[in-house]
C-alpha cells in the first residue's frame, strides 16, 4: 500500500469536504474581528463621550489624596466609616459609569447586527433589481429549465432553487444568492446560450453555483458582505463623526488597521468559498466535464500582490490548482494562524471588559472569556490542523509545524491585545518599559507560547491518530468534535490561568504591593489540586490513545469517504508509512511497576517514622512535611516512569509516558491511603480527592519535560529517526 504522494495514486484527490471547511473558519474569524472592532470603537465612543467626565465626577466622590495620606495606619484608624462611605460612593459611581459603557458597547453590537441582518434581507431584492433578473420561464427555455431541474437533483439539493436570468447579459456567468429559505441561481443570457453551443461548459458553471448552495455558503457570503457594510456604516462612520480629532489622531492607526483586517477577512471568506464550490462541482461534473477548461479560460488580469490580496475571487491559477490536487485547501499557514490569534487578541480584552461589567467576579469573567475564545481558536486552528494533517498523511502536503504555528498564535494574541482599546489606555507588554510588571508579562508570554505549541502539537497528534482510525464520516465527525472539546478545555486552562495571573500581576506589581512571589507559589499549589486540571491532563493523553480501543477495519479501503473520487484504489490508505502500533500495555506495566516501587519506599518511610515518632504522635508540621515529601517523591517517580516509557515506546512516546505517569499516580495515591489506614489513620473523601489530584497533576507536570528530554535525546540517534512520522514520534 502506498500513500497518495506516489505516482500510482497521483490522480486521487483528498476530500476537503470531509472536515469543516475553511469557509466556516474564515467566516467565524470575520465575525470575531467585527465583534472585537465594534466593541473597540463603541468602548472608545463611550469613553470619549461619557466616561472621562463621569470618572472625574467619581474621583470627586472618593477620599481625596490628602485624606488618604493622613491615615495613620490600618490598625490605628479609630473610625473608618467616613473613608468607607466615600470609597463606597466612588465604587458605586464607577460601576454606574462602567454600566453605561457596557450599554454603549452592547448597543453598538446590536446596531451592527441589526444593520447586517437588514442588509442581508435587502440584498436579494437589490440583486434582482440591479441585475435585471427575471424568472427563467418554460416559455423561454423549456429545455434549459428541465436540465437545471435535473442538475439540482444530481446535486442533491433538498429543494429546487429559483432560477433567474438576465437575458441581456451576454457574459457567460452564474451567481448563487438569496435568503436561506429561498436560494436563487441567476444565469446570464450568455450562459443560457451556452446550453446549446457548449453544454458541458453550461453544466460546469451551473454545478459550481449549485455547489455554493449545497456547501451552505450563500448565507455566509452575504452575511460577510453585509457585515462589512454594516461595520462601515454603524461602527466606523460614528467613530469618525463623533470623536474629536485629538482622540481620532491617537487611535487612527488602530482603527485603520482594524478596518483593513475586517476587509481582508471578508475577502478571504469570499475567495475560499469559490474553491470549495469548484471542488464539489468537479465531483458532479464527471471527468468528461468542462469545469477545468472553463476555469482555465477565465481572464487572468495582471495585478500586484496587494491587489491580489484584496480581490474577492481566487485567480484562475489558484482555482485550477485547487481542482487538480486540492493541496491548497489543506494547508495551514503561519499568517492565517497569526490572524486567528490577532482576532482573538483584539476581541478578548474588549469582550472581557464587557463581561467584567455584566458578570460579577474576576474568576468567572476570566473563565467565560477564556472559554469563549478557546473554543473559537480550537475551532479555527484545530480544523486547519486536522486538514493539514490529513494532507500530510496522504503525502500531498507538509505536516503542520507545531512550534511555528504556536509562535504565530501566541504572537497574534499579543499583537491583538496591543491593537485593542484596552491596551490603548493601559501599559501592556510592548509599552511596558515603564511598567513594573514587564518581567512578569514576559514570563506569561513564554507560558502562552509553550501552551500554544503544546496545543498545536496535541491537535496534530489527535488528528493523525483519529484520521487513521475513523472508518465512517460519522466517526470522523465525532472524533473531530471530541478533539475540539479537549482542545478547548486545554486552551481555556492556558488562557484562563494566564488571564488571572496577568491580572493579579498587573494589580500587585503595578501597585507595588509586597509578597507577589508567595502569592504565585500559593496559586500554583491551589492550581495543582484543581479537578479541571486533572481532567484536562487526563484527556490530553487518553483521547489520542483511545484509538487503540477501536476495532481494526476488516477492509483496508474503508476510509473511502476521505477521497473525492468514488473509485478509490485500495492502494490509497492514509499514513501507511507509519505501521507502528500503539503500546498502552507497555505504559500500563511501567506505570504499575512505578506504583509498586513507590509503595515499597512509602511503607519503609512510614514505618520508620511510625516507630521513631514521640509517644504523643507527630506534630502538624511533621505531618505536613511528610505529606509534601511523599507528593514530591510520587511526582519524581512519575517523571521517571514517563521518561522510561518515552524511551521504550516508539509511537506517541510522550503520551504513553503520561499514561504511565497517570497509572503510577493512581497506584501511588492508593498505596498512600492504604498505608495510612493500616497505620490507624482515616480516609476523608475531600482529602483523598485533593491528594489524588495533587499527586497526579504534579506527576504529569514533572513528566512532560523529562519525557520530552528523553525523546529529544532519542531523536538524535540516527536509526531511531527513521521509524515513525515525525509529529507522531514527537508526541
Amino acid at each position, binding site marked *: 500500500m502506498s500513500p497518495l504522494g506516489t505516482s500510482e495514486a497521483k490522480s486521487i484527490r483528498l476530500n476537503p469536504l470531509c472536515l469543516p471547511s475553511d469557509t466556516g473558519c474564515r467566516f467565524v474569524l470575520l465575525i470575531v474581528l467585527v465583534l472585537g472592532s465594534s466593541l473597540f470603537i463603541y468602548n472608545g465612543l463611550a469613553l470619549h463621550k461619557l466616561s472621562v467626565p463621569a470618572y472625574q465626577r467619581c474621583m470627586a466622590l472618593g477620599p481625596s489624596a490628602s485624606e488618604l495620606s493622613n491615615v495613620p495606619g490600618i490598625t490605628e484608624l479609630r473610625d473608618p466609616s467616613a473613608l468607607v462611605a466615600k470609597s463606597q460612593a466612588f465604587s458605586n459611581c464607577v460601576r454606574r459609569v462602567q454600566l453605561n459603557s457596557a450599554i454603549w458597547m452592547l448597543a453598538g453590537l446590536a446596531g451592527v447586527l441589526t444593520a447586517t441582518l437588514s442588509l442581508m434581507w435587502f440584498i436579494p431584492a437589490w440583486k434582482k433589481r440591479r441585475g435585471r433578473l427575471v424568472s427563467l420561464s418554460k416559455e423561454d427555455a423549456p429545455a434549459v429549465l428541465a436540465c437545471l431541474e435535473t442538475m439540482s437533483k444530481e446535486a442533491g439539493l433538498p429543494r429546487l432553487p429559483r432560477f433567474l436570468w438576465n437575458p*441581456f447579459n451576454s457574459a457567460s456567468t452564474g*451567481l448563487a444568492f438569496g435568503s436561506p429559505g429561498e436560494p436563487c441561481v441567476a444565469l446570464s443570457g450568455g450562459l443560457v446560450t451556452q446550453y446549446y453551443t457548449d453544454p458541458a461548459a453550461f453544466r460546469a458553471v451551473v454545478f459550481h453555483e449549485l455547489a455554493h448552495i449545497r456547501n451552505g455558503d450563500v448565507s455566509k457570503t452575504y452575511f460577510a458582505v453585509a457585515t462589512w457594510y454594516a461595520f462601515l456604516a454603524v461602527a466606523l462612520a460614528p467613530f469618525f463623526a463623533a470623536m474629536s480629532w485629538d482622540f481620532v489622531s491617537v487611535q487612527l492607526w488602530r482603527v485603520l488597521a482594524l478596518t483593513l483586517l475586517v476587509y481582508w477577512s471578508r475577502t478571504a471568506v469570499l475567495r475560499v468559498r469559490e474553491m470549495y464550490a469548484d471542488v464539489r462541482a468537479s465531483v458532479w461534473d464527471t471527468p468528461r466535464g468542462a469545469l477545468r477548461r472553463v476555469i482555465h479560460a477565465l481572464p487572468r488580469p495582471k495585478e500586484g500582490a496587494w491587489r491580489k490580496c484584496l480581490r474577492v475571487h481566487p485567480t*484562475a491559477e489558484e482555482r485550477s490548482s485547487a481542482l487538480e490536487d486540492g493541496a491548497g485547501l489543506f494547508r495551514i499557514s503561519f499568517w492565517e494562524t497569526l490572524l486567528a490569534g490577532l482576532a482573538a487578541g483584539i476581541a478578548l480584552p474588549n469582550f472581557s471588559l464587557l463581561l467584567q461589567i455584566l458578570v460579577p467576579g474576576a474568576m468567572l469573567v476570566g473563565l467565560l472569556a477564556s472559554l469563549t475564545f478557546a473554543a473559537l481558536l480550537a475551532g479555527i486552528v484545530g480544523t486547519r490542523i486536522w486538514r493539514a494533517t490529513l494532507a500530510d498523511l496522504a503525502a500531498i502536503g507538509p505536516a503542520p509545524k507545531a512550534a511555528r504555528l504556536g509562535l504565530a498564535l501566541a504572537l497574534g494574541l499579543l499583537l491583538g491585545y496591543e491593537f485593542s482599546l484596552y491596551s490603548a489606555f493601559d501599559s501592556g507588554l510592548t509599552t511596558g518599559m515603564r511598567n513594573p510588571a514587564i518581567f512578569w508579562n514576559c514570563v506569561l508570554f513564554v507560558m502562552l507560547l509553550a501552551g500554544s505549541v503544546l496545543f498545536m502539537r496535541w491537535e496534530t497528534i489527535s488528528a493523525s491518530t483519529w484520521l487513521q482510525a475513523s472508518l465512517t464520516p460519522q466517526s470522523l465527525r465525532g472524533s473531530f468534535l471530541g478533539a475540539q472539546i479537549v482542545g478547548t478545555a486545554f486552551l481555556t486552562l492556558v488562557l484562563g490561568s494566564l488571564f488571572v495571573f496577568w491580572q493579579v500581576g498587573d494589580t500587585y506589581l503595578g501597585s507595588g504591593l509586597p509578597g507577589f512571589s508567595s502569592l504565585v507559589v500559593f496559586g500554583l499549589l491551589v492550581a495543582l489540586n484543581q479537578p479541571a486540571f486533572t481532567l484536562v491532563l487526563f484527556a490530553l493523553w487518553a483521547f489520542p490513545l483511545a484509538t487503540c480501543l477501536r476495532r481494526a477495519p476488516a477492509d483496508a479501503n474503508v476510509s473511502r469517504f476521505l477521497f473525492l473520487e468514488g473509485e478509490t484504489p485500495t492502494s490509497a490508505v492514509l499514513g501507511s508509512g507509519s505501521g507502528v502500533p500503539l503500546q498502552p500495555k507497555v505504559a500500563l506495566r511501567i506505570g504499575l511497576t512505578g506504583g509498586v516501587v513507590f509503595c515499597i519506599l512509602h511503607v519503609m518511610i512510614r514505618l520508620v517514622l511510625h516507630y521513631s515518632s514521640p509517644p504523643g504522635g507527630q506534630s502538624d508540621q511533621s505531618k505536613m512535611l511528610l505529606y509534601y515529601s511523599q507528593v514530591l517523591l510520587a511526582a519524581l517517580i512519575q517523571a521517571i516512569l514517563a521518561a522510561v516509557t518515552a524511551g521504550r515506546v516508539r509511537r506517541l512516546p510522550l503520551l504513553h509516558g503520561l499514561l504511565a505517569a497517570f497509572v503510577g499516580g493512581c497506584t501511588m495515591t492508593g498505596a498512600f491511603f492504604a498505608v495510612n489506614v493500616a497505620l490507624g489513620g482515616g480516609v476523608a473523601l475531600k482529602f483523598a480527592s485533593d491528594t489524588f489530584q495533587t499527586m497526579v497533576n504534579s506527576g504529569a507536570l514533572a513528566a512532560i519535560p523529562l519525557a520530552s528530554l528523553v525523546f529529544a535525546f532519542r531523536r538524535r540517534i540516527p536509526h531511531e529517526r527513521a521509524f515513525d512520522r515525525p509529529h507522531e514520534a514527537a508526541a
Partner: protein
Amino acid sequence: MSVSEFDQIAAEVGRDVVARAAPQELPLYRSMSIAYLQSPSAIPSKSVSKDEMLGFGVAEAITYLTPVALPVLSAVLKFLADELKSYIRDQHLVGDALKRLFNRNGPPAPGGAPNVALSREQLEKIRKLAFENACALKLKSDQASLLADSIVGTLVASA
C-alpha cells in the same frame, strides 16, 4: 407605414431569422424583442453586468446577434415596403404582405394580401442592405454575413 410598424413586424418575423442565424439565442428572443419594441436603440449586442463580484467569474462576453437582427430586419422591411408599393394598391395590406414574404406557408391574412415573388436582383439588394446595416451596428463581418444570408434564406425558403 411608420417606423414603429416596421419594428413591430420585424419582431414578429425575426424569430425565424434568429432560428437560422443563431438558434442558441432563441430563448432570449422573447425578452429581446419586447425590449426592442420598447426602445429599439437600447439593447447592446454585448453587455456585461457590473454586479459580478460574487459570481462564477466572468469570461469574455459573447456578441448577440438578436439585438442587431431586429433593427437590420426593420430596415429590410422598409426597403421591401418601398418595393411592394408598385404591386399593392391598398397600402393597408403592405404589412400583411411583408409578413407573408417571411412566412408564405402560414395562413393567409383576412384582407387577402397578395403573394409577391422577389427577383434575384431584389434579393441581392436585400442581402447587401442587411450586411451594410449589420456592419454599421458593429457586428463583425462574418456574423453580419451570416445574418444577411439568414434573412435572404428565410425569404427564399418561404417563397
